[in-house]
């Protein structure tokens, strides 16, 4: 392509031509702004309430600080936290175990359509309800306590890990699977040698992610009777022992931060 010398006559072109007005986008922004005003009104979020709230907030923070470190409270908190940890560990272990076959079934490149569709529907169902709601149902079924919490989180784990697992399997290179099939290997062998190596690294990531998620969720299923530190926190809350509440919150944050460090290490091991 040769270079055209500047100076050839052209009609003047303007800013407007450079940035053609995108009316759809403008309409969306306007709609968003209007919505915010509308919704705030519906929810009665007024400036007055906010100011009052800030004042209350200050008082609230004052009652939370300093965090309560009495021996008997600390022991209660430790027990509660340990129970939450146990709930998280068990929920992850069983949830992941059950998610494996579920995810495999749901992968459209491995199983026939009717199987994968059923599995996908099941996964969607498991994910629909918030763990707290599932916990309420399990409390009705198996009574108060950690078991209900574990079962609720198993359901959540199956749903989430199952979905991630199915997506990971669908993204693998089928050529490698074909190659293993061509050697005459049976279905399970094909799985082990052709499919699993490709997804294993990501699978470890999912397990760690789910353990983290269950750790966070286990702190709250107690509010509805599912055991763990959520119960301790809720009791303290209802008694207005806000300094205990603060201690519990700090412990939760510390444990989760610790876990994030540990999980990076674990990921590296399985790299």
């Amino acid at each position: 392509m040769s270079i055209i010398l500047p100076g050839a006559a052209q009609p003047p072109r303007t800013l407007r031509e450079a940035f053609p007005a995108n009316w759809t986008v403008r309409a969306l922004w306007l709609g968003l702004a209007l919505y915010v005003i509308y919704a705030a009104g519906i929810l009665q979020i007024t400036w007055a309430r906010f100011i009052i709230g800030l004042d209350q907030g200050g008082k609230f923070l004052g009652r939370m600080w300093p965090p309560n470190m009495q021996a008997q409270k600390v022991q209660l908190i430790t027990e509660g936290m340990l129970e939450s940890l146990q709930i998280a560990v068990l929920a992850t272990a069983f949830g992941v175990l059950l998610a494996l076959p579920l995810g495999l079934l749901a992968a459209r490149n491995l199983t026939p359509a009717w199987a994968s569709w059923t599995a996908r529907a099941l996964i969607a169902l498991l994910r629909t309800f918030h763990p707290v709601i599932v916990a309420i149902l399990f409390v009705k079924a198996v009574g108060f306590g950690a078991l209900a919490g574990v079962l609720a989180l198993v359901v959540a784990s199956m749903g989430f890990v199952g979905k991630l697992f199915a997506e990971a399997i669908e993204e693998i290179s089928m050529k490698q699977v074909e190659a293993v099939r061509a050697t005459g290997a049976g279905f399970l062998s094909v799985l082990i040698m052709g499919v699993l190596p490709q997804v294993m690294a990501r699978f470890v990531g999912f397990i760690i992610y789910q353990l983290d998620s269950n750790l966070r969720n286990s702190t709250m299923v107690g509010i509805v009777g599912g055991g763990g530190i959520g119960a301790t926190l809720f009791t303290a809350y209802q008694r207005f022992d806000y300094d205990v509440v603060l201690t519990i919150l700090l412990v939760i944050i510390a444990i989760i931060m610790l876990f994030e460090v540990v999980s990076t290490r674990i990921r590296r091991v399985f790299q």
Partner: protein
Amino acid sequence: MTGVPVSSVAHMAVGTGITRQWQRFTPAERLGRYAVYLLSAVAIIWSLRTIEVIPEFLYDAPAQTYDLFERMWPFDWRFWPTVLSGLIETLHTATLGTLIALVLAAPVALLAARNITRSVALNQLANLILVSSRSVNSLIWALLFVAIFGPGALAGTLAIAFRSIGFVGKLLGEAIEEAQTGPIEALTAAGASRMAILLKGYWPQVEPSFWSVALFRWDINVRESAVLGLVGAGGIGVALDTATSNLYWDQAGLVLATIFTVVVLTEIVTSRIRSKLI
């Protein structure tokens, strides 16, 4: 992990010669893996032993479950107006909460992104904020805000917002760190100010991720908002709480069915929009 061997060849003396055996992992790797497996096994066994399972409740479970579902159906449709208004409130809470979170998370994400904020101290501070936000469940945030602002949707909206800051901020920060440096270099070389580089160099690259994360979080927030009412923070959870406290399971069933429908719908809508985004 450069420089670390990914598998090893072990030399073994066999008979009169030395043969080489292929091992899948180096000794260091194997040690690491065994350690993790061992720890996991210990954790699981310890948990199983200490968790309380009351056998009577367990045997009773199938009967209880059947009883539960029997009581839920047919739904009590007189409850519908309450459910509907609760639902609308939930949707507003989720949306407004997500929007507030986006606004609040953006500066924190900029602070956390190591290619934008060079100060390690600020990076750490931002990360601390984000982790704290994520570690506290929206339900617990709701408890706190109910104590401050009183029961109602204001508490719920702020709970959703504060919980979402961690999620949005973390993913946004990662998206910013993954921005290509080439265009940034070009704008720097042209003498653009920091703000101009942010607007024209980073934002165009980060924008698709921004909206994708926003939608993703909104989807999750709809689910989360639904339960906040259980602690008094408004929305459809209040209806659920009333129903379960009074053991009106047919009302509860209606609430659950509504939640189910809404969640499925939002998931369909968000996945459609997200696929059009890139």
